[in-house]
């Protein structure tokens, strides 16, 4: 992507903009990460209490039958399950900044399950797919923007958003299954 961009800049003569863009991009990344520190520190602390207090285990015991089939490689009552579930729940309630630390924790656990390799495992790909499709019930930011532009009914898009999200998540899961099946086929062919 970077190379394509650079080649294009040479053709279109937009080198000046590109120079600016390089440092703007880098700065935005660092600002984003620094902004994440407060959220990460706070929620990871709270999550540790939830873990020690047995709340995570309770959550995974109650809800894991639902998600178990999505992650056949994760043992029941493994801490990864608890984090996956809390990430999904937080996403559903639109708590994006609480969901991220939980999702990262889940990834950490999944990586450990995979023998700490630097390659994404099947469960990790599935988990990421669900997160990029994002299970949202209440799109708070969008509603806020619609309010600023004087919408007669800012919340009217909740229904269509939930329906579209449901399709996105379902197709993410199906596409993920398909790619997994293809990887298995290829491995067999070798």
């Amino acid at each position, binding site marked *: *992507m970077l190379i394509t*961009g650079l080649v*294009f*800049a040479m053709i*279109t003569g*937009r080198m000046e*903009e*590109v120079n600016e*863009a*390089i440092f*703007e991009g880098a700065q*935005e990344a*660092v600002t*984003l*990460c620094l902004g994440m520190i407060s959220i*990460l520190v706070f929620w990871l602390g*709270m*999550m*540790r209490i939830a873990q*020690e207090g047995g709340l995570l285990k309770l959550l995974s015991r109650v809800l894991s039958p639902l998600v178990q089939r999505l992650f056949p490689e994760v043992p029941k009552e493994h801490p990864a399950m608890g984090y996956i579930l809390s990430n999904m729940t937080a996403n559903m*309630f639109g*708590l994006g900044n609480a969901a*991220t*630390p939980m999702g*990262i924790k889940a*990834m*950490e656990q999944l990586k450990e399950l995979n023998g700490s390799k630097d*390659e*994404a495992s099947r469960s*990790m*790909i599935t988990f*990421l*797919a669900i*997160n*990029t499709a994002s299970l*949202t019930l*209440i*799109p708070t*930011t*969008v509603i806020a*923007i619609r309010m600023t*532009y*004087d*919408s*007669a009914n*800012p919340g009217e*898009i*909740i229904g*269509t*958003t939930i*329906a579209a*999200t449901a*399709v*996105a*998540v379902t*197709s*993410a899961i199906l*596409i*993920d299954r398909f*790619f997994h099946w293809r990887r298995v086929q290829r491995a067999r062919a070798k």
Partner: protein
Amino acid sequence: MAVITTLSMYIIPLLLFVILLSAIINKVPAYETFIEGAKDGFQMAVSIIPYLVAMLVAISVFRASGALDFLLEGLRPMLTAIGVPTDIVPLAVMRPLSGTGSLGVMSDLIATHGPDSFIGRLASTMQGSTDTTFYVLTVYFGAVGIKKISDSLKVGLLADLCGLAAAIFFVTIVFGNM
């Protein structure tokens, strides 16, 4: 509307209450445990920086060089042919690349067409129904040091496409095409 706003305001405090309550019931030292877990937060944020810098610089250059516009023009006839309204194409392409970028495009569309127009509703639904694939991938995999992403990107982008199609479909049947 008011119910939802109030509800979402109560969720986080309520969650904290439940977590602390469970600590008391199970006699977990809340403060020490909090510190123990929170320590990792800083390290985690810092470890994401290199991944995010690489990705955002690439996307930023891609946009500024005009390559994105070129891609947009290339995709426009194709997307229009399958029923995507022309005005929505920039948002569809921007959505998986950049969260702030697509939020900007969405606000623009709502400002030009009005929040209660077909385009306005479609833009709102699209923005809300999927996440920024590139960003989520970088943050989640970057934080735990995954370098080989396997099929992740393909799965994420194809799912985005399905979400886009679903958004157009549902907005059309619920609100009608105006």
